[in-house]
């Protein structure tokens, strides 16, 4: 699919790892700044990460404190108004970022990890194992995600932990196919042959040799997954299947919808968390889109009428 940013070392992995890392980071930075979409996306994600880490710096009200006037419109005191119980919407939005971001990041990471293990094992070990793992992947790809999520979520006790579990179960298969085909293309490389001759175990080869060479694809998978996880997590909570006492954007949407916010004119209460979810999704999508362009030069935007270097 995409060409890795870091060229796979054909020789033994004893080239100074730190040197490789620095070089890779420099490449990354250049790639990001050179691509408008990447810049926008990374900026969005950085802002969200900052808000998640330091909510107190931005919003000073306690998001749970139901002490203000109910259903107030937006004003300088309450930037986004108040809820039907008298809580400050802006504070809820800011403080809700953390748990939302945590859920998305944790799920995407775990699902990518599972995806990778299964995809690469299938690719490397091949044969029977490959057939069964591919079958497993296909089955999970076909099972419709949101219905499966709803079925699982309605039976497990509500909460962030359950949500993480059910999301991982339903989303791991999304990227497994690509990871498997990447694994297939790496399978015949010399350095792997060298490792096999050395007598290394299969699990070592998979984890310590193949995986580090797939970093760029793993990152791409993580990002691609994150776009969907954001929507699914928010969707589950919006339906009321999350835990309503935990502060996330999704539960804000649930309360706003249940209390008829849109119809009764308290629009920021329902639109603001919706915007936030869309923003996070867009951030990941932009970076993902740009990643594909960076990795596959054929996809890069053709810039006309901007004569850069002479022929």
């Amino acid at each position, binding site marked *: 699919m995409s060409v890795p940013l870091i060229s796979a070392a054909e020789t033994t992995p004893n080239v100074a790892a730190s040197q490789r890392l620095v070089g890779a980071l420099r490449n990354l930075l250049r790639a990001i700044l050179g691509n408008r979409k990447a810049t926008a996306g990374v900026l969005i994600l950085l802002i969200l990460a900052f808000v998640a880490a330091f909510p107190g710096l931005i919003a000073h009200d306690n998001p*749970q*404190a*139901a002490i203000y006037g109910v259903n107030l419109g937006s004003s300088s005191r309450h930037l986004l108004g108040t809820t039907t*119980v008298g809580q400050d919407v802006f504070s809820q939005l800011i403080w809700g970022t953390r748990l939302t971001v945590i859920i998305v990041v944790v799920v995407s990471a775990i699902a990518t990890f599972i995806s990778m293990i299964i995809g690469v094992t299938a690719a490397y070990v091949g044969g029977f194992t490959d057939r069964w793992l591919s079958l497993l992947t296909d089955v999970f790809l076909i099972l419709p995600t949101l219905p499966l999520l709803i079925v699982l979520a309605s039976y497990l006790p509500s909460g962030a932990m359950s949500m993480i579990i059910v999301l991982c179960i339903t989303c791991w298969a999304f990227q497994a196919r690509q990871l498997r085909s990447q694994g297939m293309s790496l399978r015949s490389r010399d350095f792997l042959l060298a490792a096999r001759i050395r007598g290394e175990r299969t699990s070592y080869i998979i984890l310590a040799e193949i995986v580090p060479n797939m970093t760029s694809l793993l990152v791409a998978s993580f990002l691609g997954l994150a776009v969907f996880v954001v929507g699914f997590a928010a969707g589950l909570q919006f339906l*009321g299947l999350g*835990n*309503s*006492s935990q502060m996330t954007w999704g539960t804000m949407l649930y309360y706003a919808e*249940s*209390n008829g916010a849109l119809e009764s004119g308290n629009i920021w209460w329902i639109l603001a968390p919706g915007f936030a979810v869309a923003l996070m999704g867009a951030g990941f999508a932009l970076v993902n889109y740009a990643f594909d362009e960076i990795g596959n030069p054929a996809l890069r935007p053709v810039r006309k009428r901007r004569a850069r270097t002479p022929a």
Partner: protein
Amino acid sequence: MRGRRVLTLIVAFCALAAAGGQATIATSAAGNTEKVGGKLVIANETGATWTCQFNPFNSALNFASMGFVYEPLEFVDILETKSNGTSPVTPWLATGSTWSNNDTTLTFTIRSGVKWSDGKPFTANDVVYTFDAMKANATLDVDALWSVHGGALTNVALQGANQVVFTFSGPVEPYFYYVADQTPIIPQHIWASLDQSNLISYSDPNPVGTGPYLVKSCSLDNIKYLRNSHYWQSKPGHPVPQIEELDYPAFLSSTPCNLELIQGQAQWGGQPLPNIKTSYVAKDPAFRHYWFPPVEDVSIFPNLANPLLSKLAVRQAISLAISRPDIAKRGESGYEPPANQTGVVLPTFKKWYEPSLNTVTYDPSKADQILEAAGFKKGSNGIYQDAQGQQLSFTIITVSGFADWDSSLQVITQELKAVGIQITAEDENSGPYVTALESGSFQLAYAGGGGPYPVDGPSPYYELRGLLFSGNIGSTDYSRYSSPSTDALFNAYGAATPAQQVTIMHQIEKVMVDDIPFIPVTEGVSWFEYENQHIGGWPTAANPYAQPAVYNLPDDGIILTHLYPIS
């Protein structure tokens, strides 16, 4: 009363003949031209499309048949209390009833001249058959009349041509409500030919009853009712019912249902409308009204088996720490009045209420004192803990989908935190929620109206007995409270005179305040919106002749016999 009278006169077309708080059936309201006509559209969201089944014993479906098609023996208006301490009873399919043998025998005289909607005559045999069918099928006996503690029904028999005698094993005067008001009478000539062991599964698609309406047609989205032109209450010159057609559309969620009301396409609403004054009333203030009479408590139930919650000090602290008016205003948008620790719903049951007993009211500093006196100390995180280091930190379960309860719990959480008690709300789907309530697998629970079992009735006895009588542990006694002296009070109530019953109720209130077996927070209401430009005869706060919600059974049928078209 006088101020209210003036108010009703101001509202055009809506002068009701209210007199001293007691409503009667026979008088026509002013503005009633005794004409027949018009159409009434109902706005009640049930969350599902219609199944077109009308079995009156199926509590998932009977809101569409009980009252409209099926009727009770006598109607008890739980919203009114006469000066002698009883609720007004209106003869319906029975013309009267008497208790005898120390309240162990109840004899009904059955009305003559009533016809089933298929033309066959209604007789006392139908009444006997109905109750015998309930005996044979526990699934039909929704109020457990044949199996209840301390006074189960032992026999139902015909006496003479038109009397039915109910024999109980103990004095159970309060059970009159369930026998007379809550049981739909079914036609023997139709039901007796069905599989008697499986009556609950009978879908009853074309219900035959004695009621004011017939089911004209039913589709997934709408039930159409047509007036029963042979209804037994009709007299020459006084046709009953007067509204010709009813539409009962199915709504999957509250938004489109609320919209029907707001846009004026429905006239009888059973919805908790958000911002009702601005979204509904303001659109047509002359004719749009709402009234939410309180009928039961919504409470915090501590599991008394929990070692920390078994300490009276902790429960007292919880009750002292919450500001019920604040929770009512924020959590319930002011629609549900604040409750009180005696457990008596006001103003509905003020006859039984003794104000001097209500000594546990909002006082957070006293909560602190009580906890410290009991040996609790605040930890570094601001939460009290006992000598062994056990924190006053609990989970409280509630039902998914009750957004107002979630909101109330947000406020409660905050107020309890201020006195060093921490609670975390957990939403559960209604199935696991009910299981947890019954089996006592919870620490705190938020429950009450909307819970699984009937606790409404014409006095606080019904709710409080359900929640406090030890025989109900495992069903409605969520806290698992058990006290022989309290049990004795309830048992004595069954055999007491109305005046004695008030005294006994005061003693039960004292138990509520002294022992704090549970903590009432707000009062659950009947949701009711109506417009009286085209339809008159509604129950109001000034004339509470029936519970007004379209889902209150059989009160909905009583209301239908009162409504009339305004041209």
